[in-house]
């Protein structure tokens, strides 16, 4: 008999493959919220008085994160500023921005929309149009990631934020672990985790409160709670190695439903040793052009921008 393991309600909305647990709508919503709050405490992601810059794309992950962190804001534990980055991806980003605006407004959360064009004078579409893969350009996700991190870090300081929270989920984190390992990028592996460490006072700590929530459950949560969400795939995602890894892990998960959890748990166990052996000890200096923290004379953003001037 399929009924909720917590309250006995016969209308269940999930039967978790990894544990066999069956939950009705209300119990699923509550148990997901409890899990996120428990992880926030376990990994000491947030402390009272924090001002959280929440990266709000309008997609399911960030909208769910806003929904849950807003419960802490309402209890005056934290303050939130939601920030939406408009990379300039025509036909994709516009709707996400509108949905992000409406979500923040509905909850009364302070919100800013910041654009690649305003900060860098160029949109992601323009970057990709001007440079081809044949000419040696990287895939779109590389530029997007570098530029987004730069903006989040800068806006966090502008707004006096103490933490940057993103909606990275269990699938994202598992993909990052497998990708870094397959690429032999052990230095990247040392940086994966629920909370970043700051090596420079200009960096703001980054936290991932949804790191242990599977992507499918995030989709289920936003639909169960009837939250307004932008469901669409980025048109540039097909270029990425991450996309290939995502499909590979999804395929494996069909027959091995606990594989993402075991990948994460195993990684978390060896992370301390990895960090001890492989953590980059390089000195963080300031980019001579923009003043942002950088491992070289020019940060990656300024280095890309300069290369396109030639």
């Amino acid at each position: 008999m399929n009924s909720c393991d917590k309250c006995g309600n016969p209308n269940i909305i999930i039967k978790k493959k990894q544990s066999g647990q069956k939950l009705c709508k209300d119990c699923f919503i509550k148990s997901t919220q409890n899990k996120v709050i428990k992880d926030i405490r376990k990994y000491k992601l947030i402390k009272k008085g924090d001002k959280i810059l929440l990266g709000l794309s309008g997609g399911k992950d960030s909208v769910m994160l806003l929904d849950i962190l807003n419960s802490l804001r309402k209890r005056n534990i934290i303050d939130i500023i939601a920030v939406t980055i408009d990379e300039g991806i025509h036909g994709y980003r516009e709707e996400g921005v509108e949905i992000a605006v409406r979500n923040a407004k509905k909850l009364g959360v302070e919100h800013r929309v910041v654009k690649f064009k305003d900060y860098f004078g160029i949109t992601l579409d323009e970057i990709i149009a001007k440079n081809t893969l044949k000419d040696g350009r990287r895939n779109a996700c590389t530029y997007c990631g570098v530029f987004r991190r730069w903006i989040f870090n800068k806006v966090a300081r502008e707004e006096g934020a103490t933490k940057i929270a993103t909606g990275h989920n269990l699938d994202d984190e598992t993909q990052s672990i497998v990708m870094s390992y397959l690429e032999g990028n052990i230095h990247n592996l040392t940086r994966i985790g629920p909370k970043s460490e700051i090596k420079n006072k200009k960096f703001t700590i980054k936290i991932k409160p949804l790191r242990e929530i599977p992507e499918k459950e995030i989709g289920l949560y936003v639909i169960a709670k009837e939250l307004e969400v932008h469901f669409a795939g980025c048109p540039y995602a097909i270029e990425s190695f991450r996309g290939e890894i995502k499909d590979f892990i999804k395929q494996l998960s069909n027959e091995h439903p606990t594989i993402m959890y075991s990948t994460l748990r195993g990684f978390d166990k060896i992370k301390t040793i990895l960090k001890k052996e492989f953590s980059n000890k390089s000195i963080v200096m300031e980019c001579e052009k923009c003043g942002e923290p950088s491992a070289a004379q020019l940060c990656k953003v300024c280095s890309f921008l300069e290369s396109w001037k030639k």
Partner: protein
Amino acid sequence: MQIKLVIGEKVDLIEINNNNTVKDLLKNMDIAPETVVVKKNNCIVIDEELVEDGDLIEVIQVIYGG
């Protein structure tokens, strides 16, 4: 038997066999169950749910490739 199937903005009336579950339906359409949430008559259901004559089935894609 006939059901009404909604996927995104596409609405179709389709014929299906008796005793089909949501999982069977998704398999016939080559949709991975792990990427969607399914509603039957406006309520979220699990893959094992039986689809019956006259049902309104909505398939909502929540995970996108790449």
